[in-house]
């Protein structure tokens, strides 16, 4: 009996170590396959090179880095105001009956697969942008703008979920104190409760940034995917994630390694964002 207890404890411990092992393996294999290519191409040529021409062995991913940053920034501009205000509405304004309908709806929004979002974007947002802006700005609808709108919608549930729980975690006495001083409901909520939930809200936004920068399938379908420097928000763009999926199917040798190196760059971005997120979250607890 004693032996069985001890053995099972080690089995549990072993399982707990699987996630450590997974992270270690992911780091080792990504870096081992990506870094040599980066070295061969030259770190600066790779990261800051403005031309991506695999046929001529020119691998510069600067356009894709910019593409990812532009699209993510656009998603933040679209998604954060709406998401934040919706979170405030859910936490402080929403009648209980309505909440029971809206909340599962937002959970559902989080569960819709990204291909479905992408397909929706391709069939609805792209034609709409084309007809609305083609005459004034040009472009065929597949653009930074389109991708930003779609990604903005996709990060809504992330931002709403985290911001709402951060707002709900603020002690009720903050709100009551403000009311007692004569503030209206809106003033009390927006000038005392929301600022008190600041770091939680920031954590939600940072997580949203992580989602947007890592999103692949939806962006591929609406962003146009031209591997060139961005020319305007109504022109097409290719992101880091799109670069990997589009070309990995037929890439060989250095081209393939350059794509894995693209993944490494993306991975480093995500690690930075994750670190930021956990710092913000820890701040909220104290």
């Amino acid at each position, binding site marked *: 009996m004693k032996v069985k207890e001890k053995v099972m404890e080690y089995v549990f411990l072993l399982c*707990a170590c699987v996630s450590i092992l997974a992270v270690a393996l*992911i780091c080792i294999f990504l870096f081992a396959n990506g870094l040599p290519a980066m070295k061969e191409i030259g770190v600066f040529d790779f990261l800051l090179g403005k031309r991506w021409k695999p046929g001529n062995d020119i691998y510069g991913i600067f356009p894709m880095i910019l593409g990812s940053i532009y699209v993510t920034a656009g998603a933040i501009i679209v998604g954060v105001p709406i998401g934040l205000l919706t979170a405030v509405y859910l936490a402080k304004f929403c009648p209980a009956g309505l909440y029971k309908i809206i909340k599962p709806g937002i959970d559902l*929004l989080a569960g819709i*697969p990204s291909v479905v979002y992408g397909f*929706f974007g*391709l069939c609805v947002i792209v034609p709409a942008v084309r007809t609305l802006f083609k005459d004034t700005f040009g472009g065929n609808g597949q653009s930074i703008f389109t991708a930003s709108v779609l990604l903005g919608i996709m990060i809504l549930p992330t931002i709403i979920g985290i911001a709402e729980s951060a707002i709900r975690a603020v002690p009720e006495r903050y709100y009551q104190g403000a009311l007692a001083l004569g503030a209206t409901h809106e*003033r009390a909520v927006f000038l005392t409760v929301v600022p008190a939930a600041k770091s939680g809200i920031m954590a939600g936004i940072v997580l949203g940034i992580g989602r947007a920068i890592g999103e692949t399938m939806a962006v591929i379908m609406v962003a146009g995917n031209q591997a060139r420097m961005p020319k305007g928000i109504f022109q097409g763009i290719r992101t880091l994630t799109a670069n990997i999926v589009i070309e990995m199917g037929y890439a060989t040798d250095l081209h393939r390694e350059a794509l894995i190196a693209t993944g490494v760059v993306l991975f480093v971005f995500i690690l930075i964002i994750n670190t930021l997120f956990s710092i913000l979250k820890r701040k909220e607890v104290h």
Partner: protein
Amino acid sequence: MENVKAAMENAGSAGKAEAINYQSVKQKFQSYLKHPGSFAVYILTSLAALITVLVLGFIIVYILVKGVPHLTPDLFAWEYNSENVSMLPSIINTLLLTALALVIVVPIGIFSAIYMVEYAKKGNKIVSIVRVTAETLSGIPSIVYGLFGMIFFVGVCNFGNSLLAGALTVAIMVLPTVMRTTEEALLSVPNSYREGSFGLGAGKLRTVFKVVLPSAVPGILSGIILATGRIVGETAALIYTAGTVAKVPESVFDSTRTLAVHMYNLSKEGLNTNQAYATAVVLLIVVILINMLSNFAARKLSAKQK
């Protein structure tokens, strides 16, 4: 302030006790007249919520309306070919891949949560490392998992583009989800359960399996259901690990195409838009069902705690 006073006077004159923090619609209106800024903020906030709800409703209704009429029996033929673009093989593949991934990830996820909650002592170094790595895992985008799976499972382990490689890749991807929800479910089991079990002379192992785990089942289930939802909707991690062959595999080493990958292929080709809508409907319905199930399980858990 005025409102409170008015309410008090009201209560006084009527001679009956009325809640003083109650604000009638008329009072609210008057207050908004005095504070137009507050009114503007209220409108903005409600508008944002309205936009969120409308966008959600529009996406779902649009896809249902466009897709449901195209759900023809052709789409559910046994064999896939470029004529009928049948999704049945992909549906079966999705089920197989999800089942295989869950078989791999559920025991590991539950066991590691058991270690973290029941066995590890406070301030255990391993626990904090596991926490950090699990958090890192949950932030990694699926395309990076796809790359890793392609290098490691397909290449280094030599599984090729196969059901097994795909299942292993998504298993790692959903591991943090299963772990975290199980951990929360275990933590919510009251300590008195454990003490009672120990008091009756049960060992640690028996306490965990016979007392703690059964009362945490709804929470664990809701985590597993969430993980299922992520696997079903996954595309980027599977294209280069499980591959894109639209046939039911004969062994775990055969390449498979899941429903989400199938949907991506359809919309990429751009030839079968209507069928793509129909596929989207099936995916959407699966996701809605999964969400309802997980909500149901979570409600079960909270009802139990009361």
